[in-house]
């Protein structure tokens, strides 16, 4: 109810001012340098920035009409005002500068609006026109011009424009001027007023954003907004004194003719008891935080004590780390030897298959990796389905034990062969790097290449083990473990995929068949390949007259 009355008073104040405000639409346009429109279900906002640095924000947001951050009234989503405002924003969404300003200036409050909606729409209309019209008064600044408005003077336009520029005060003005006779009034904005001892003022005196000093006689009310009032000895005010966010000093107001009414804005009202309560809450919170922090600290220290006690009972940590590291390195060496042994067997018994798989892995590792990944996922279902099928066929029951054992063995052999094939590629790559100390590596020797590749792939693990022995290098050790896992998994997947693609190395030219992944794209042009090989052995660069493989084909 109080909000409603407050809003009603605001609107009444606006209605009073809008009624006497002439249109500013005929003035010179004020350049807009930046505009921003925001539209959502609960908001339709316009923000303008002018060339002179001023700004204007008008928003219909959360059921409130807001101008430059201050609520001026209310609306309902989807009502006539909301619709009209959104329609305007929709019309200007693609405009800027001159056309934008013109469209905003020419907007008028829809005639279908009534009551508060009409008044607010007219307010928006006037605000836009004022803001977009070049004038001395800046819309957004609080430093308004010092003007004295005499209500008896017919030309009020400029004065009222200046008053409108202080929208932050107008809401309170509407409230405070309710019972004040404005027929004969003087309004002072931003200018200190002194009624001297030999002076007499008739009618209401309104002082906004300034100080008033009364030494003489005011025959009427005095209203001060955002300033101070001083009535010196000998000074007299026959009417009421209304102070809005203002201070009073001087003679005892009860000795004057009328009442003294103080009105404070909500944001300035401070409840001392609430402040004391806040301070007490703050002290409680600080006490609690300190207590909790001390408890946490004690708990952490105790835990560390217990941990240290446990560690010391199990031996000295660095020594244990070195022991673990050496053990891991030895494990890696044994793995290397075992894999090398497997490589020897593979080279001796299945060299052609191995090279075919290696070739497939090298030509298209992406595809091989994808096939390997898919194959890995299908291994278990295939094994289970095979078992089910053999059991269901009854006759196949004889083969079931073989299937149970031989299928996993075949998969393991395939993965192993694939890993060795990828290791061969890696070893050849290492050999081609001409690394100092590794000159003895010959890429043409398959076994050398494989063992070099195995060594390279295991190097991550060995590095991790060695770094694990060094204090404070745990992070790097973990990093190398991660790299080792990635390298091993990638090698196994790519190798396994290549094994599947080449049917275990028995079908090396799989690129030549109907390759859904773009066999034509990936198949090497034999003529071009031969030409490139020839170029590699030639020291003479290709000149303008050089024929390429493509040209030869033509």
């Amino acid at each position, binding site marked *: 109810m109080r909000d409603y009355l407050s809003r009603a008073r605001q609107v009444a104040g606006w209605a009073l001012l809008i009624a006497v405000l002439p249109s500013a639409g005929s003035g010179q346009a004020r350049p*807009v*340098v930046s505009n921003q429109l*925001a539209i*959502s279900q609960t908001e339709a906002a316009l923000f303008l920035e002018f060339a002179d640095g001023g700004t204007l924000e008008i928003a219909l947001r959360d059921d409130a009409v807001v101008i430059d951050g201050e609520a001026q009234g209310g609306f309902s989503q989807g009502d006539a005002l909301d619709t009209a405002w959104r329609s305007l924003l929709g019309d200007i969404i693609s405009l*800027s500068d001159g056309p934008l300003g013109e469209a905003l200036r020419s907007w008028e409050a829809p005639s279908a609006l009534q009551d508060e909606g009409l008044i607010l729409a007219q307010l928006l209309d006037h605000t836009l026109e004022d803001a977009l019209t070049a004038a001395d008064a800046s819309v957004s600044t609080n430093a308004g011009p010092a003007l004295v408005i005499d209500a008896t003077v017919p030309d009020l336009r400029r004065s009222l424009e200046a008053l409108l520029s202080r929208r932050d005060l107008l809401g309170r003005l509407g409230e405070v001027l309710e019972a004040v006779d404005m027929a004969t009034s003087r309004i002072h904005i931003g200018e200190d007023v002194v009624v001297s001892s030999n002076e007499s003022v008739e009618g209401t005196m309104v002082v906004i954003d300034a100080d008033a000093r009364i030494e003489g006689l005011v025959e009427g009310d005095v209203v001060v907004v955002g300033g101070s009032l001083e009535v010196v000895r000998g000074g007299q005010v026959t009417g009421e004194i209304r102070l809005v966010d203002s201070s009073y000093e001087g003679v005892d107001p009860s000795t004057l003719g009328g009442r003294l009414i103080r009105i404070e804005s909500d944001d300035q009202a401070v409840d001392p008891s609430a402040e004391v309560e806040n301070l007490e809450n703050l002290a409680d919170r600080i006490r609690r935080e300190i207590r909790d922090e001390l408890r946490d600290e004690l708990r952490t220290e105790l835990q560390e004590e217990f941990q240290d006690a446990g560690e010391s009972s199990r031996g000295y940590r660095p020594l244990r780390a070195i022991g673990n590291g050496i053990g891991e390195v030895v494990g890696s060496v044994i793995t290397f030897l075992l894999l090398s042994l497997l490589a020897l067997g593979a080279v001796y018994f299945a060299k052609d298959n191995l090279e075919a798989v290696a070739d497939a892995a090298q030509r298209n590792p*992406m595809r091989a990796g994808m096939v390997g990944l898919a194959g890995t996922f299908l291994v278990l279902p295939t094994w289970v389905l095979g078992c089910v099928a053999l059991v269901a066929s009854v006759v196949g029951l004889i083969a079931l034990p073989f299937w149970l054992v031989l299928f996993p063995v075949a998969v393991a052999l395939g993965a192993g062969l694939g890993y060795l094939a990828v290791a061969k590629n890696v070893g050849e*790559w290492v050999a081609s790097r001409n690394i100092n100390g590794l000159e003895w590596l010959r890429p043409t020797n398959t076994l050398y290449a494989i063992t070099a590749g195995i060594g390279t792939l295991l190097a991550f693990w060995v590095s991790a083990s060695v770094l694990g022995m060094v204090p404070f290098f745990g992070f790097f050790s973990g990093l190398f473990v991660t790299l080792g896992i990635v390298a091993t998994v990638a090698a196994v997947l790519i190798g396994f995929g290549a094994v599947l693609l080449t049917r275990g190395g028995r079908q090396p030219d799989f690129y030549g068949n109907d390759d859904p992944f773009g066999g034509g794209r*990936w198949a090497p042009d034999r003529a071009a390949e031969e030409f490139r090989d020839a170029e590699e052995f030639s020291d003479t*660069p*290709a000149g303008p007259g050089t024929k390429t493989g493509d040209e030869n084909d033509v």
Partner: protein
Amino acid sequence: MYRRLSTGISVALVMVLGVAVVAQGQDRRTVTMSRQVDNEQNVDVNVRYAAGRFSIGPAAPGVLYHMQIEYDQGVFEALVEYRGSSLRIGTRGVGRHVRLGRDHEVGEMQLALSRDVAMDLKLEFGAVRADIDLGGILMTRLEIETGASQTLIDISEPNRESMTQASMEVGAADFTVRNIGNLNTPVIEVDAGVGDIELGFGGDWKQNARISVDMGLGSLVLRFPRGLGVELLKDTFLTSLDSEGLVKRGDGYYSLDYEEADYRVTVDVDAAFGSIRVAWLE
């Protein structure tokens, strides 16, 4: 190399997780803003856009920038800041809501930039489908960072300013650039994690250039126009090369008219696990 690979995988994970962050009962907000050209000589433009569709094009005469952005304000908030010839624009996550559901509507951002003011342009995308036309925009620097995006960049008209360097950092993406010659820069760096990269070297070449491509996992297609001198250098690991129209000489591959070409580009590729293919623009 492995660092890039792990970066790419991380970005891919973010992408996968990001797919789960979809909106249900979204609170959509549309923001439109524009600014007139004042006396700006050079503007730093930093565009950040997390998720949705994104496009850039040239603005109307006299307009410094014009942006329209639509987003779910429960997940993102608009970011616009113009201060001292520095423009930051786009969206950023508000970190309050992670909404799950199927009715996902992606946001959209359309940005138009002035043709009259030189710009240092930095574009940062997350999970974005971007269609970028930089033709006619005056660029003194270009920096692009993408996460899990599908990005098409076309420099449809020559850049009238000379650019010191252009760099493109690609996470897990489908990334295509056309008319690189119109960038008017001697140095281009492309750092790609996982994805398909296509670089079109068309356009109006005004100087020689060196292009460094660092690729983790994926395919790289290089499209050269006839008449441009091409030198292709590669340091690769398990990467196939289809070097159609190039001849090998020493460690590099060269176009047939490399010696006679008015302008030459050197493409230095460092790649692991993938393929490189050379194609020619007709």
